[in-house]
């Protein structure tokens, strides 16, 4: 089935120079010569000769040296040679012969502990394989390759989006695509079509044409604005939505307005309308759930938001958004689909010493101040600590006494205990509370309010049987001298025995932290900018389900110059609630639209660059023009429109079909659809609906759903336009490409067009699809990282790691850099969030940009990027085998064979196995002779990554010992760590790396995996790229000009082909 994967074979020409010099001459001057250009009539004769030679000379040698391990009895590495058909032209085994040749040429086979063939024997085997393969290649190049293939899910989505002028995720419900061996979903052989596809194609077309083609009058728009500020809502109506861990903004501080189409507050004209508007106002509010009370504040002029502190990725629950996040909550009064706009009025904040404002301060250190007496579970008394005892509270609700504790009667209901207490001196305090042990199932929580400042915390569940009282620090606080009011409780309240309020000791870690923060905040100037990130979601019992809405927007305007920031989206592609009006509870049917300050902070002491949000407005469905473009591009203005519906329909169909089929359509084709329209139009009341039904049929036609259809082939250039567009844009050709193709000028201008296409925004579709599949970024997306070990690996770090790699590849491509940049670069593509995660300072803001890196940062090239390193770990520690296989398959282009069946167990119980480093564990693995053969060939490529932990951060210690990243490569070279691997790859393997990139581009561009027959083309492109300083665009153009891409559409022009691509023989 495979020796070694199938890409990048045929390196033998280059390889021979380094491994078997003596053979070079032999191959260059073939003894037998049946691989020479031969007329077709003598092909049979050549095959016969080759077969004879196999039987007489080669087969006995293979039997002597190979069949022992790769024969009837044993199939090491899943390879069996004795049953291969020696006729490579008629048989189906050329690919496997090719892999075998590769192993012999690379010196891997026979293994060095086996008897080696003599030079003459080796020459006979190699020569026979090489020449038979040449023969097969020639025979194959005369055979047409299958070309027709259907659109992938992404291509389908992009094609519909362009065609209908609707940027929706059309394909999301189609079945996931299969992958080819090289990993590509656009490979014709991997793309399967089923009844399920057909059903979905029709359903999607119907549903989405219904969106594109609109009614006469626009739908009613839901348009609301919430304004936040001290007292702005006095005397008005607004929803205060509570529930588990909720933190609503008080009614008097929120002004809810229902707006008309001009953006003016609606004025009721009747008592009924007034009642109706009041009903809506009472279902709109602002919530701060998930936000720490000291990271936001209601000011006169708006809501102050510190830079958001990402939420801990605590699986499986507790998704509350970063802290703080501001949510406009719409209960029952929202549209379920369509475009919408979010307008946020905001500015930077004025400088302020927030840490000397009265109220709670989130914990800077979770070290308690009080403790228990050594001999009992009584509280050890500390001087000046104010102790509030549960049983002595002034007021309580829903609590019952259990021993010394007060605990809730029903944890699902809110409960509370209240106290008044006297603070003798203004200053910083620390608050601990003593509570009964709690299990995780009870979702133990506590809400603390002092005066008007509140915090909601999860209490860490007690491990084990835990009978003893627990002390949990609650908060710090800045309190002025005088009487204060404290409330403890909430939903899922854990209960308590005492609350201890102690002056924050000067030697407590929080003291220093707060002082430091105040100093930093004072220094922070307003020259910095923040950013707003919008999100949309729905409320869940334990948090929210949400998605980010586009890119964040930079906020740089001063506090006296509030500006409006607009965010757009489509509700159907976002996780909004499905409206269920039969559900009456006050916490259901809540849609969330909100923002946070996206200048992400790394710890609670970092206030970042605060912003003030004055108001948020939501409007949807939102159509700046009516009817929208999606409609008018189908039903365009024409003199025939009213005068002659028949002729107009013909026009409409011609235009739509030309775009859908990506070529000119014939009158006969149009006529079929016109007939269909005539036969079905009677079923529909409205003209547009009747035409829509025809368009549904157009979108189910194979001419739309399949690439490389014969009608496009006939018009030659249309096929080239399509091929270029789906290669570089993963989308249909745009107008310019279509026009050039129509005029027959595209071939002449291909270089200019490729340059334009690479600079175009749509190149991102290529970057996303190609990078994801070539580099297996899906593994990073699917990785569940152990958050206990890596608490700062947040969803934002994860997102930015994926972006780092795609930005990097795009940067290399758009700047036509050397392919060797993939191995090592003096820059990294970073934004602030990721740079800080990697420990690189001085990168400010959200946007990705090339950042100069020095070698001590260990961040150059693809090999040091988080997406690869994390995706190829096990979530807790580095995984050398995964990383090694990736380097071999993706960077060097020679994937190792799959693990054999029936892997013998390691010694079933190796004592202390888990205390060994992975490198040592691997050595144990390799000490088994049956594993060693293969593993010694690729393990070293993973061991060198030991310096990178499971989330791609550089480490010098692992498991309490210094990291050992030294290894011996299969060719005997000893290297230490990734830096030396990079040097080795650049120095000795540059051609292999180039060939790997070229092969992957080639497979992606042609929609089929590379086979041995493609090797001459791959070799030729590789040489061109190397000669041109490894430039990546030369590789892209080389692939485009290769016969497989270029010629297959423009049959019969073989003269140009041989000019463009010198045969490998000439090159030798």
């Amino acid at each position, binding site marked *: *089935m*495979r020796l070694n994967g199938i890409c990048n074979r045929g390196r033998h020409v280059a390889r021979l120079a380094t491994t078997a010099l003596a053979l070079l001459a032999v191959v260059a001057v073939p003894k037998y010569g049946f691989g020479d250009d031969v007329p077709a009539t003598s092909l049979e004769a050549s095959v016969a000769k080759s077969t004879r030679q196999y039987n007489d000379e080669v087969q006995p040698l293979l039997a002597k040296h190979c069949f022992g391990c790769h024969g009837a009895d044993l199939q090491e590495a*899943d390879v069996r040679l004795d049953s291969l058909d020696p006729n490579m032209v008629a048989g*189906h*085994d050329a*690919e*496997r012969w090719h892999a075998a040749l590769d192993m012999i040429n690379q010196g891997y086979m026979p293994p060095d502990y086996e008897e080696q063939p003599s030079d003459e024997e080796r020459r006979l085997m190699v020569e026979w394989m090489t020449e038979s393969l040449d023969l097969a290649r020639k025979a194959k190049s005369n055979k*047409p*390759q299958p*070309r*027709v293939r259907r659109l992938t899910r992404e291509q389908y989505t992009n094609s519909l989006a362009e065609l209908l002028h609707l940027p929706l995720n059309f394909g999301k*419900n189609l*079945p*996931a695509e*299969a*992958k080819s061996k090289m990993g590509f979903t656009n490979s014709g052989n*991997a793309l399967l079509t*089923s*009844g*399920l*596809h*057909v*059903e*979905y194609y029709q359903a*999607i077309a119907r*549903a989405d044409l219904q969106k594109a083609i609109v009614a006469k009058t626009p739908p009613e728009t839901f348009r609301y604005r919430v304004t936040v500020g001290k007292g702005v809502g006095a005397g008005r109506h607004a929803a205060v939505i509570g529930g588990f861990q909720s933190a609503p903004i008080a009614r008097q501080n929120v002004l809810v307005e229902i707006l008309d189409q001009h953006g003016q507050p609606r004025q009721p004209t009747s008592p009924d309308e007034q009642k109706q508007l009041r009903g809506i106002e009472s279902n709109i509010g602002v919530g701060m759930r998930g936000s720490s009370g000291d990271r936001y504040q209601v000011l006169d002029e708006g809501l102050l938001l510190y830079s958001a502190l990402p939420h801990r990725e605590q*699986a499986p629950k507790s998704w509350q958004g970063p802290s703080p996040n501001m949510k406009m909550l719409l209960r029952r009064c929202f549209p379920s*689909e369509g475009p919408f706009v979010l307008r946020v009025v905001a500015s930077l904040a004025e400088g302020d010493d927030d840490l000397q404002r009265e109220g709670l301060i989130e914990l800077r250190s979770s070290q308690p101040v009080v403790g228990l007496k050594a001999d009992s579970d009584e509280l050890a008394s500390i001087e000046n600590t104010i102790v509030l005892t549960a049983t002595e509270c002034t007021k309580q609700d829903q609590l019952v006494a259990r021993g010394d504790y007060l605990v809730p009667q029903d944890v699902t209901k809110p409960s509370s205990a209240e106290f008044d207490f006297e603070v003798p001196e203004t200053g910083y305090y620390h608050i601990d509370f003593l509570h009964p042990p709690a299990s995780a199932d009870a979702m133990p929580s506590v809400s603390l309010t002092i005066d008007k400042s509140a915090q909601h915390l999860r209490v860490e569940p007690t491990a084990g049987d835990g009978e003893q009282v627990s002390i949990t620090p609650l908060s710090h606080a800045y309190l002025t001298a005088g009487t204060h009011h404290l409330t403890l409780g909430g939903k899922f309240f854990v209960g308590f025995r005492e609350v201890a309020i102690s002056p924050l000791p000067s030697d407590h870690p929080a003291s220093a932290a707060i002082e430091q923060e105040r100093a930093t905040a004072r220094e922070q100037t307003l020259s910095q900018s923040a950013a707003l990130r919008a999100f949309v979601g729905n*409320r*869940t019992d334990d948090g929210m389900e949400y998605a980010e809405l586009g890119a964040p927007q930079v906020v740089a305007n001063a506090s006296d110059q509030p500006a409006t920031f607009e965010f757009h989206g489509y509700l159907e592609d976002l*996780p909004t*609630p*499905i*409206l*269920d009006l039969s559900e009456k509870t006050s916490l*259901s049917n809540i849609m969330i639209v909100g923002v946070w300050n996206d200048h992400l902070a790394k710890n609670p002491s970092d206030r970042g660059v605060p912003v003030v949000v004055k108001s948020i407005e939501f409007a949807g469905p939102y159509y700046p023009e009516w009817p929208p473009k999606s409609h008018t591009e189908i039903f365009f203005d024409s003199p025939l429109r009213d005068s002659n519906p028949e002729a107009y329909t013909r026009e409409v169909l011609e235009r739509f079909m030309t775009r859908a089929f990506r070529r000119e359509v014939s009158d006969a084709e149009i006529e*079929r659809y016109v007939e*269909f329209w005539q036969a079905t139009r009677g079923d529909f009341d409205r003209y547009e609906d009747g035409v829509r039904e025809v368009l549904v*049929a157009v979108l*189910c036609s*194979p001419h739309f759903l399949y690439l*490389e*259809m*014969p009608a496009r082939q006939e018009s030659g250039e249309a096929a080239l336009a399509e091929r270029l567009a789906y290669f570089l844009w993963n989308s249909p050709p745009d107008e310019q490409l279509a026009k050039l193709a129509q005029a027959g000028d595209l071939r002449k201008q291909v270089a200019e067009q490729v340059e334009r296409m690479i600079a175009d925004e749509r190149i991102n579709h290529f970057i996303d699809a190609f990078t994801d599949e070539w580099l297996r970024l899906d593994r990073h997306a*699917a990785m*569940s990282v*152990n958050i*206990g070990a890596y608490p700062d690996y947040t969803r934002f770090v994860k997102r930015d790691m994926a972006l780092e790699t795609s930005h990097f590849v795009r940067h290399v491509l758009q700047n036509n850099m050397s392919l060797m940049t993939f191995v090592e670069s003096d820059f990294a593509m970073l934004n602030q969030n990721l740079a800080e995660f990697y420990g690189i300072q001085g990168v400010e803001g959200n946007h990705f940009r090339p950042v100069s890196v020095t070698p001590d940062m260990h961040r150059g090239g693809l090999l040091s990027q988080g997406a690869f390193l994390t995706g190829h770990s*096990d*979530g807790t520690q580095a995984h050398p085998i995964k990383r090694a296989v990736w380097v071999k398959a993706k960077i060097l282009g020679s994937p190792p064979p799959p*693990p*054999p*069946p*029936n*892997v013998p*167990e390691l010694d*079933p119980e190796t004592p*202390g*196995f*888990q205390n060994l480093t992975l490198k040592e564990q691997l050595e144990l693995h390799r000490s088994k002779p049956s594993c060693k053969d293969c593993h010694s060939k690729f393990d070293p490529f993973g061991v060198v990554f030991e310096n990178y932990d499971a989330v791609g951060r550089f480490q010098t210690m692992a498991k309490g010992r210094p990291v050992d990243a030294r290894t011996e490569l299969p060719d005997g070279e000893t290297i230490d760590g990734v830096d030396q691997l990079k040097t080795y790859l650049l120095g000795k393997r540059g051609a292999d790396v180039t060939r790997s990139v070229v092969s992957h581009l080639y497979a992606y561009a042609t929609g089929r995996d590379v086979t041995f027959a493609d090797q001459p083309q791959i070799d030729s492109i590789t040489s061109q790229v190397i000669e041109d300083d490894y430039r990546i665009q030369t590789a892209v153009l080389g692939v485009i000009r290769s016969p497989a891409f270029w010629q297959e559409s423009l049959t019969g022009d073989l003269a140009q082909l041989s000019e463009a691509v010198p045969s490998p023989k000439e090159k030798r």
Partner: protein
Amino acid sequence: MSGRSQNSRSLKLSRRTWLRGAGVACALPYLEAMGAALPAAKSAPKRLCYVYFPNGASLPPESNPAHSEWSWFPMGEGTDYQFTKVLQPLEGLRSNLSVLGGLSHPNSRQLLGHLAGDTWLTAGDLRGSAYNNQISADQVAARHLGRGTRYPSLVLSTDGGIGYKSRVATLSFGDGGRPIPAENRQREIFERYFSGGAGATTNERRQSLARKKKIVDLVMEDTASLQRQLGQHDRSRMDEYLTSLSSVEEQIQRNEQWLDVPLPEVDSGKIDFDCNPAVDPTAYLRTMFDLMVIAIQTDMTRVLTYMMAREDGMGFGENFPKLALNIKKGHHAISHDQADGHWSEWGSYDRWLAEQFAYFLTRLESLSDDHGSLLDNTLVLYGSACSTTHNAVNYPLVLAGGSAMGVRHGRYIKQHEETPMANLLVSMLNTVGVPTEQFGDSTGPFTTPGEPLFTVPG
């Protein structure tokens, strides 16, 4: 079909809130149906169901102290066997199931275990480069059992689609071993099979079917006319599209025939259709089993396959141990692990899987139709295509249900390691009334010393 189409909203299903009595929702679209209620079938329906888990099972060697505690296979043999902690969740169903040891597909024994997953229900031969997989047993059954139901089969997996050759994401394969994409979006599944055209009248639904059919006809004509212009290779790709079109056409015809027959009203309890397998796998798996139960209850189909996770650490399943049990490693990593206590980790995860399966069986057992408990007329096979990782022999298998079809449960039956698993597949097909003597490389029906497992019901 958008997840948020008009239909879905009129069903009033809310995200994150329990759907109370999906039975009511099921019945909704058919309230106006004019036809007489479906007469009770004369003979009991016979059903077949397959449920798969990847990466083999925890099998500590006998010398290891963990053996008696964490071995997937029970201790002892015959009727006198004891479950270890792993399959202990199935204890209450003992009289309704048999544990089968020793079986495997001969063609796959020398393959990497992960690859054998492609052949679990096909017994295909993947040793060559041509990837000669073949039709799966469930699809053979679907041809017979599907004649009297709305859909021939329901093909499900947690990951959806087909995965790729050697690491599939579906258990079902059609003619020539062509994989059938599995469905995995639960709300979509519900809408597609149980609430299509919710709120519409019979006449409206008839019209909508007619429209679908017209379009399929037009596209078929178009596609067929193309064939002449295509080379041989390309023709096969268009053939695939044509085949897909005609399968849809068949299904539309079938739907037309069933149009006047109301979907039986069933009480399916509470179902949450918005479970995310990347967040809460237990909830996701249970919803999938709930959907399968509704499909059986409503006799929507009699053949079901469900691949709970993919082999080799692909897809959602890899993270299930982390999410469900707070184990630090993924499933595939656990299956390779050698650290202290690894057998208990693997065993606990296998136990968790068994708990989910037990949930399914218990639901089937507790519900009945005119012919008794649903489980008694449903033959369910649960298992994997390797024993310990990479060893495609001695598949861990549990056969459950089907007592009314003559299956005699209650034993742990160990087979000789030469016995092809296809023999079991043949006997299962025979049990549900598919008259075949041969499937894949079977050498005959499944036999066992002593009392037979499969008997002709008397």
